């Protein structure tokens, strides 16, 4: 009898299993197998000899990383840019979600929601081109306005402070709308009776947001933070690559652009794997740390 149930269950779920197979294959082939490549970081990897025959050199490349000023600078840039972007990036999606939530006219809400998350679907090459056109010194619109007021143009793209503002700003502009979706979803789950009760007690709209809405979506905020803190040390390649130029390279050269330039173009596979591994370990540590802190607030991920 029991066997019959089992078999029936198996038979019923068999098509689902088949559907599931490609996903497993994807994870095995593209996520788990490549992890063995980490071994390169401890070898003098030679492309002809492969993993099996390349000689092991222990921590040679890690020592090289920490004794080369140029590489340390790249790691430092990655941490500074990544963590700053992560911290600056937290409040904007929440604010946007709250603002959208307060819009009472349904059609306007839908429309503005669509408009703000549209930039997410543009590639960085396009956004980068737009940003550079906007801020360029000869023909840029922003510099047109600057010139009208001050009589002179300003090298926004070529001085470090303004470049950082452009870098963070364009990132926020592109991704905020999309990140707000998850908060909007959390907001729809808030019990409306709480608002009713609050307004009977005489709470204003602002008070309602502070005392009802924010506590209600707090778990979502924390989970989101834990999830994204890991990737904060992983500064994406495309945005930097399209926005950077020689004058700001000393603050904008990050691990991903360095790996592209030195690892792929010069075959320094062991060195760049070591850098990648170091980056991942850092990311992992940050995730564990944040989770630990969140545990105290009773909102940890695991």
């Amino acid at each position, binding site marked *: 009898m029991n066997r019959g149930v089992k078999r029936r269950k198996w038979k019923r779920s068999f098509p689902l299993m*088949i559907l599931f197979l490609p996903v497993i294959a994807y994870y095995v082939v593209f996520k788990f197998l490549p992890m063995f490549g980490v071994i390169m970081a401890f070898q003098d990897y*030679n492309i002809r000899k492969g993993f099996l025959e390349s000689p092991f050199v222990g921590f040679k490349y890690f020592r090289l990383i920490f004794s080369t000023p140029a590489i340390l600078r790249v790691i430092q840039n990655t941490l500074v840019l990544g963590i700053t972007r992560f911290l600056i990036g937290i409040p904007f999606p929440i604010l946007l979600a709250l603002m959208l939530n307060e819009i009472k006219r349904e059609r306007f809400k839908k429309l503005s929601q669509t408009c703000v998350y549209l930039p997410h679907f543009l590639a960085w090459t396009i956004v980068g081109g737009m940003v550079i056109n906007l801020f*360029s*010194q000869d023909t840029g619109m922003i510099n047109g306005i600057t010139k009208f007021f001050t009589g002179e143009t300003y090298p926004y*793209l070529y001085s470090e402070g303004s470049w950082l503002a452009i870098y963070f700003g364009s990132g926020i502009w592109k991704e905020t709308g999309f990140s707000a979706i998850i908060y909007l979803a959390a907001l729809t789950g808030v019990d409306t009776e709480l608002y009713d009760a609050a307004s009977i007690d005489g709470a204003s709209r602002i008070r309602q947001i502070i005392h009802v809405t924010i506590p209600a979506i707090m778990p979502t905020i924390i989970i989101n933070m834990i999830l994204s803190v890991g990737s904060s040390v992983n500064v994406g390649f495309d945005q930097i690559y399209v926005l950077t130029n020689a004058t700001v390279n000393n603050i904008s050269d990050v691990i991903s652009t360095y790996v592209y*330039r*030195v690892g792929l173009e010069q075959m*320094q596979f062991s060195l760049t794997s070591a850098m990648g591994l170091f980056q991942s370990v850092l990311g992992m540590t940050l995730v564990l740390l944040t989770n630990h802190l969140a545990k105290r607030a009773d909102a940890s991920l695991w």
Partner: protein
Amino acid sequence: MKKGTTKLMALLLTGAMALTLAACGGTGEGQGASSESNAVQESGNASTGEAPAENPGGERQKITVAVYNRDNVPASEGSIIDNRWTRWIQENAPVDVEFIAIPRWESGEKYNALFASNTAPDLIEEFGVDNMNTFYTNGLLMPLNDVIDQYSTTYKQLLTDYPALESFLTKEDGQMYTFGVVNKSSSNHYLIVRTDWLENLDLEVPKTTEDFVEVCKAFTNDDPDGNGQNDTLALSYAGVMNSLIRAMYGGMGSWMDDWYKADPAGQSTEIKYHWEHAQAAIAMMEELYDAGCVSKDYATDTGTQAQQDFLNGKLGFLGLNGGKGAVLNILTNLKANNPDATIKAIPLPVSEFGAFQPAGGGYLQSNAAINADCEHPEAVMAYIDWLNTPETLLTLKYGGDTYSQIDPVTGAYVPKDQDVFSTEVAYNGDMYMTASGILDPYVDVLKFDESKPLEKTAKEIVIEADGYYLDPSRIFYQLKTKPSLPSDLALIQANIGTQIDDAYTKAILDENYTVEQAMADAQKIFSDAGGEKITEYLNEWYANNNGFIEPNAEMLPNYLK
């Protein structure tokens, strides 16, 4: 579950293989349109011995050959690895050739991926000297001396006829690892100026770098186009112009190349980083930038914007590469925007370090190699030998008599129908990149149609430019052997290179950062990162290798013969 995965993979692989096989099947069919085209008659100039590659008979060996993909094959012709010329090669070459496409502008990355997956072609074709050096340092290339001795015919003859080629290609261990070609010297980088602007302002062609600065200022401030508006600039540093300005001060290519250069006046053979050259160049670039003569956004431009600004009549100078064809292109587009505009190429202004030449089309070039894992090097050798025959070269380059004929007036071998030629032949240039240009008896004859005024003007500009840019009394630096740095030194170079570049650019753009500060910082970066190790290595290498070729006034006329 595990078994299921295996099965699925097997299924997927089978599917993929079926597709591949189908694709291969396609290549055999279709008639190579020019397979019947005969070789053109000899004109006596081809000095290599006539030794047409022999078909070994019986079964032909199969090799894989790289070919650049520049996305320039018309849809009607198929793809870069399957078109009338690949079919022609398959029918006529002594070996069975399968082409592997290499994206032109990501060739380093593509080759690395192919090597890593053990699927790199038997014959590697690559212009990038640094990429080739990287392959060599990683042991990916086969030593060629034995292969050439045992199997080669026409290519061996080429090495005998041009001994410079062999010493140019020989590496530290006495072996050649790459195949090279011998070309006629030709101009490539041009410094183009708006001559009508010079005339409007009553100015001479700038002879020295000081003149150049003056002309740039006049182009910016004195309304050279006479439209009453302050809307012109002298130049942009993006693209080729950067190399040209550095060349004026005796540097070539990237800033790091200052390193490889011995004393430009030929007094000393010591290799070192020539800080004073870089400093002079940067100082001039900063002066022009601060005087408002330069496009402000050059640092975010790869050269496209600069060219566009020149065509729109905004800039007075343009750095141009691509030689003859590019001149006609620029002239046509400029005239379309402004019929009164006139241009010409001028020699590089003379600096305090001497009179230098811009980069030219190399006389000697190393651009192919055999994969160390290749199983039939003799088959690859036979293919290289076959490529290095005038018959093969003329058929691939001109389409043979099917597409081209000899012009009775100029003696040039010209397309019968330019449009048909452009569509059906012009895309195959990379297939014969390892055939020596000197095997082509028509290479000297400029292919301009003088009955068209624009082409006539372009021809005049090019002839004048060749006169300047191939003048042996000026110093050439483009012909030199570059040793491959061991990977730890290559890493130092990569790290230093970008940082020094950045400091220089910052000195030009940033008002608060002076040239002196940039030079001090650059030298500190250099010594902190161990730049002296590279200097030592290079000096030792050049001391132990007589193969180092540095062109000078005596050698040049021989190149031009």
